């Protein structure tokens, strides 16, 4: 019987976050960071508001944000642990994933209230 481990769970989140950050984040940045502010596209406000208010959009945004937060937490953890050679394994993990959890809670709050 296999023992239960936490590492594979955070790795799955890290993996999913990597895909999300590579595939979807550039699209979001291009749309909301460049195209709309610079006026390349002019979406109708009411239409955009309706899209963002839809529960499916909120769910997708929340999912993307959570996995990307865990992706960055995992990277941060190993940058401190292997890159900077800091050996406080447990505090580093708590700090990294705790930060991702807090960020996820904030993301949940935001998507529920937009």
């Amino acid at each position, binding site marked *: *019987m*296999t023992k*239960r*481990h936490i590492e*594979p*769970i955070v*790795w*799955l989140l890290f*993996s999913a976050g990597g895909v999300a950050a590579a595939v979807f984040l550039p699209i979001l940045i291009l749309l909301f960071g460049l195209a709309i502010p610079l006026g390349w596209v002019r979406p109708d406000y009411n239409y955009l508001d309706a899209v963002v208010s839809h529960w499916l959009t909120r769910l997708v945004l929340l999912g993307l944000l959570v996995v990307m937060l865990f992706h960055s937490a995992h990277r941060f953890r190993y940058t401190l642990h*292997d890159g900077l050679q800091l050996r406080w394994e447990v505090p580093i993990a708590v700090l990294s994933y705790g930060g991702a959890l807090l960020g996820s809670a904030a993301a949940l709050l935001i998507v529920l209230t937009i």
Partner: protein
Amino acid sequence: MADSIRMQVTRYTPGPDSVPTVAEYDVPLRKDWAVLDGLNYIKDHVDSSLSYRWSCRMGICGSCGMNVEGEPKLTCATFLTDYAPGPVRVEPLSNFPIVRDLVVDIEDFMEKLPRVKPWIIRDDDVTVIDGEYLQTPEELAEYKQFSNCINCMLCYAACPIYGLEPDFIGPAAIALAERYDLDSRDRGQRERLDVLIEKEGVWGCTFVGECTTVCPKHVDPAGAIQRYKLKAAKENLMTFLLPRAAR
């Protein structure tokens, strides 16, 4: 082209020497000479006490791995002219204890390799008389890339994690586990997974990817490790999702 190149070679004899030192030798620079030919020249003509491993000179035996200008290389497949006008630095592979000069002790790997059971495991009692296990070209293609590993240890020398965490089972061992897992004749996936699902198995790896960069046989150990992580993660998820009896 200059007619000679300077080689800076690590010399070390445990006991008399407290630390490795660097010796310089000028060797002929020829278009068809590999770094190994330079070492052979030194041994034959300058200093016969120089120690290093080599055998086939054609990238198959995997014995002549050394750090050339800091990069793990097969010295039989690394040409001196690529480092002209020199000097070219030749050191023993990183992350291993030095036995003498350029010879490293790979005992740690020799102990780890059999842990992943890199052989075909069967759950039936087919004997030689019953005939061979048949395999289609497509089934062969599944694992062929991973079977090209020659155990040259370049991936272990390149892996920063192996340097930091000596318990990590390492790139070549995992690539070879994947080679047998992907073999249609094999039934040993479960046994290998039990070894690699642990912390010192695949989870030591943080996907630096240097193992694949330095691999002279294009085995892609980093790819094998990522595939294995997915297998291990799925299995681990099962332990959370399934009741105890169903595992």
